[in-house]
């Protein structure tokens, strides 16, 4: 049980063991950008370890822009803070890279085969 003492459980205190590891360095930031769809490529399926180099700067810039942060492309403290905010686990829709329908692209393998024109 998670520890609490007041009836309304307002003093609920998750155990320190089960806290999310803060995103505090470049590697964690790269993983964040890849996990939530900011890595390169139309389907957002960037490399598992995340964008590198120029791609990283570009991904950071995009992330900073939608979070109303200065789009410097640098991993600064404000950007790390934004990455650590409570959030939904579904990847983000990135306005620039996805088309209007913002529907996740079904991987080619699963796309229904088009019938050859008569």
């Amino acid at each position, binding site marked *: 049980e998670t520890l609490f003492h007041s009836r*309304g459980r307002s003093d609920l205190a998750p155990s320190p063991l089960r806290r999310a590891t803060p995103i505090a360095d470049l590697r964690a930031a790269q993983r964040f950008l890849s996990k939530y769809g900011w890595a390169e490529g139309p389907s957002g399926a960037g490399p598992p370890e995340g964008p590198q180099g120029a791609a990283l700067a570009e991904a950071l810039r995009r992330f900073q822009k939608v979070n109303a942060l200065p789009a410097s492309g640098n991993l600064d403290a404000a950007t790390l803070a934004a990455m650590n*905010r409570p959030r*939904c686990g579904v990847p983000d829709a990135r306005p620039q890279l996805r088309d209007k329908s913002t529907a996740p692209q079904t991987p080619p393998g*699963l796309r229904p085969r088009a019938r050859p024109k008569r």
Partner: protein
Amino acid sequence: FLQMLLPGPGRQLEGSPQSGGTLAFAKKTLTWRLVGEGYSSQLSVEEQRYIFRLAFRMWSEVMPLNFREDLTAPAAAIDIKLGFGRGRHLGCPRVFDGSGQEFAHAWRLGDIHFDDDEHFTPPTSDMGISLLKVAVHEIGHVLGLPHSYRAGSIMQPNYIPQGPALELDWSDRKAIQKLYGSCEGAFDTVFDWIRRERNHHGEVTVRFSTYFFRRSWYWLYENRNNRTRYGDPILILTGWHGVPAQDIDAFVHVWTWGRDERYFFKGTQYWRYDSDRDQAHTEDEQGKRYPRSISEGFPGIPSPLDTAFYDRRRQLIYFFRGSLVFAFDVNRNRVLGSYPKELADAFPAIERRDHPLRDLDAAYYSYAHKAVFLLKGSAYWKVASDGDRQRRAGLPPNGVFPRQPIPRKWFDVCDVHASTLDM
């Protein structure tokens, strides 16, 4: 994590025409369940289920789908399953990260998982993370909505502590209606209700609200906000006292310098409503009982009625039944000699063959639009007002303009599942 975004086996994979192929449910009523092995340890099960019921209802209030909690069907038959878990959970390929950062995730057309290491709280609390807000967000994903960066959207990826009341704003409504279309359906009656109030100068002011009645529930429509009241529809029983609980045929407000009489009509009877005491009269000043038969109170008027409205300028009540219209003179308490008439004659079509002809659902004078509307099914015909006739010479008196879809004038008048009407 792409797998997580794809629907699970056996889900409906239908692109709806409005969405241009984005995945959307093709069923009118979706079932959901908080899975037994996924109860949170932080809130009582009842609280969790209540919050999810409210979350689903909030989407149902703005889109044509209904949501029903199903506690009995086999799990595989449930459309949306919700559950809490810590770290590795519920067979999900995505591991939760503990308190902080990721607090929930969803599979489109599939399921919703909440990280039970987060401090989820009920809507009444302003601490922790509102479970209601997160649930509404994740349900939005399951229904097909992506994240949005628009301020005020429920689909923002990051949690933003909510102000006093959580509601779906205009853009979220349009986004979901883009996938599922807008709400349609016939009404039993529509009317404006006049309220007399005193302002802080002590002067009497008049305000009005528009009501839409359907079966046993109703909506208040806020004309200035172009939407129904938050939390509507509610049961007629809860808002109106002493009138029938469902299937009301008509409402008429006889309002002149000397008279202020409000009547509900159903079947062969009518009720008079006391606005000040907010309940139907049981008898009049002479001790005569209500409800009464329509033929007694309005001689010459048949019943049951389709609908009726009061024309303040001419001090006439127009009663509609089938293809006939009866104009009733409230001062002489009788039907005008030249009536009944065919609906198509009394309210002629301005464009040929574009006319409701018979069996109206509602006839309604709107103070907001200063015009009469005839409603039938999902369409309305506007009756040419004096202003219209001044602007366009040659329009016939009481001429009706071509049909228009109701949802394009009155927005988000949506049903919810009967099991959530009392919320």
